[in-house]
């Protein structure tokens, strides 16, 4: 009987709480777009939710492929959900080579955004992950700087 009650408790109480605990991502996207500042135009957003890295495993990463164009200036902003344990950062790769990251692990410095002045049109890969492989949720916003 205790077992049945436990199942019902999980279903009726804990699951709805988990559902309501999901981030209001649209509000977060809007505030992140605002944080990008004036003279920017929103292009894309990525909603990120990653689990904590398990021991001896690679840090969870959300990756997205995006065309970036020559003669354009882009701003990549990252914003954490209020309930996120981890701090989100972005690393941009060009043909597998890291070109810029909003987190410098050697100095432990984290930037809330990075600007990329693009001179080469091509497909770039955006990696989003949380510092230290923490569990977390947040959004990444890409804007062009006018």
């Amino acid at each position, binding site marked *: 009987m205790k077992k049945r009650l436990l199942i019902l408790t999980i279903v009726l109480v804990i699951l709805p709480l988990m559902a309501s605990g999901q981030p209001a991502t649209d509000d977060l996207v809007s505030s992140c777009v605002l944080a990008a500042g004036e003279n920017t135009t929103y292009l894309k957003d990525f909603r990120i939710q990653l689990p904590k890295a398990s021991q001896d495993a690679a840090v969870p990463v959300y990756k997205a492929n995006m065309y970036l164009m020559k003669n354009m200036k882009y701003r990549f902003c990252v914003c954490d959900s209020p309930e996120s344990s981890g701090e989100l950062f972005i690393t941009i790769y060009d043909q597998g080579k890291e070109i810029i990251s909003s987190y410098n692990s050697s100095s432990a410095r984290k*930037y809330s955004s990075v600007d990329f002045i693009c001179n080469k049109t*091509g497909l770039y890969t955006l990696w989003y992950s949380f510092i230290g492989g923490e569990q977390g949720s947040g959004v990444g916003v890409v804007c062009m700087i*006018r």
Partner: protein
Amino acid sequence: MTGTIIKIATVILLMSFCSCRNSSVRQGGLTFPVADSVPAAEAEKLSEEAVADIVQNIASPVEIAAILQSMQIPFSAGYLASTQEADRLTTNFRKAVMLGIYGADLGYLNIYGKTGNSVDVLSAIKRLADGLRVGQFFDFETLKRLSTSKSNLDSLLFLSVNSYNQIDNYLRNNDRGSISALMITGVWIEGQYLATQVALSHDDEILRDRIGEQKIILGDLLMLLRPYRGSSEEYGSLYDMMEQIRAKYAGVKVSYKLAEPETREDKDGRLVMVQNEESIVEMTDDQLAEIAALSKEVRNKLISGN
């Protein structure tokens, strides 16, 4: 008794999953992407994987317009597709392509601050989006209200581009990739039409570069369309037309000049990276003229449906 509890639990579990899904769509917050654990050592493989993966930003409804505006090219309503077409469309194929075309036109109007003119385009977009069952992502009333004042331009741009992104995500996540590919193609062909038509009368290196670099992007666009080309005659015809545009790019050369990037902090403490590596486009006037003519022909065929 145990069986009943398990049944109740199963129903509630299913309901809670369904309600999560609905609420996320209502908020526009689609389901979160599945985590991808990629060891750093595999980074170099990403470019190959990238081609097979979903590619973002193949066609942006606002970037071409922003370039034209920065060149101080005057706005011309003559470049816009007629919104009367929206009522004549019966197939999802044509609705999806036109949704993309009107999306690019809306970006052009908004970037130039011609918000008063955008109500017709917004109405056409709303009708098409409803027809494709993605109208829930267009807050038409808010967009219409924002378009009455130039002071709301940033909000209008954000809401309209965000609506397109949400539609695209929704279609891809709901096994309607064929519709998404058509919408993206519509955005691309209208942007290409705008850029090439302006380039014919305004010689500008940045614009020429942008047109020439579409050679790189066209390959991925064709890859998006390829799985569906056999699904209908009109899809097959679209694919062939896009292949013909790619063929016009055969003689256009894109080369790269290597250089080390520079990274600095700006006065606001923001990290700025200047990429000194450069892509260089070589395209003759004849090549540009042929690409422009075919792009216009394909765009007009897609609009007229003939």
